[in-house]
């Protein structure tokens, strides 16, 4: 499993950490929003594909947008989603 961390303000119960099955990064993100539809519009566009301006950190490394399609997230990793303007 992979740990997905999102801003706590995305969820009504202020939960920020979730577990999703490992795999290609985009599949991990799609599985996450399928399990947590309240976060869907923050992570994927109307076409269901990940929003590329949303920054993605895998195990302490910010993944450049051009590298994301080829990124595979192994079990035990942590994926953090962070907006290009964070906090506030």
């Amino acid at each position, binding site marked *: 499993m992979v740990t997905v*961390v*999102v*801003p*706590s*303000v995305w969820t009504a119960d*202020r939960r*920020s*950490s979730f577990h999703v099955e490992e795999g290609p990064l985009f599949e991990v993100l799609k599985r996450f929003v399928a399990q947590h539809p309240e976060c869907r*519009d*923050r992570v994927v566009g109307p076409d269901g594909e990940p*929003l*590329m*301006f949303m*920054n993605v*950190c895998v195990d*302490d490394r*910010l993944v450049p947008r051009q590298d994301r399609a080829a990124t595979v997230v192994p079990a035990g990793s942590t994926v*953090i*989603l*962070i*907006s*290009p*303007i*964070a*906090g*506030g």
Partner: protein
Amino acid sequence: MDEMIVIGGGSFLLGSPPWVLRWLAESDQPLPPDWFGDETPQVARDLAPYRIDRHPVTVAAFAEFVRATGYVTEAESRGFGMLYQHGWTECEGVSWCAPAGPGSVGHADHPVVNVSWNDATAYARWVGKRLPTEPEWEYAARGAGFRLWPWGNDWSPGKANTAEYHGGTMTTLADWKNWWATVHNRYGAISMTTPVGAFSPAGDSVFGCVDMAGNVYEWTATTSDLYAATARYEPSMLPAIGNYRVIRGGSWMNFRYQVRCSERMHGDPLGWSNFSLGFRCAQDA
């Protein structure tokens, strides 16, 4: 239009004292206490004398830079910028001179927006200045004594360009979305900036700086970091540390709580910008 304020050096406590987090937790606002944890604990900072722009850099000033240098912003190079529609969206043709996309016009006396950290830094270098550090920005906003907003501790919606200035008191994200939906349905995704200094002198800081609360978010030179290892912060903020740049001041998009002098936000410096993000410059005195 390029007036600078001279600020003598001094020592002060950067960030928010504990009572501010308690006040935020008790206030009618939707964010949890840890959301604001990165503005604590207060830490002592010493500042050498410096100058800071009285107001954010305007469209007119940035246009002069572009005319003189041929500079192309990162939004222009990419071919898109970010607007808030029903959520943040990358939109073609959005740039500093077309803040809401093709057909829109940046008003000369408004703050320039859609400028990345690199764009802001390039402008500052061209005029012989630099971006302010985070402590310089906060000190210019409130002076040595702590205060919530540049004018004091009492909120007044008429003293700053915020969402509450345009749409009345808002306490929930739903309130904000309803207000923005009304604006968006009527005008589209416009940037609701106001002329620099429109709220002066009532909204000025103790040093006479204008628009330190609201109007546009402002880049600083400072790389995002915690004030202390003991700070409690939102876990999703971790990637910002060491990678993002501190943004200060809040914008026309925000409630009163996000335009406080000690409020911190963090922005991706790798080419990203949006229609509510600008900057002002500083200089060693």
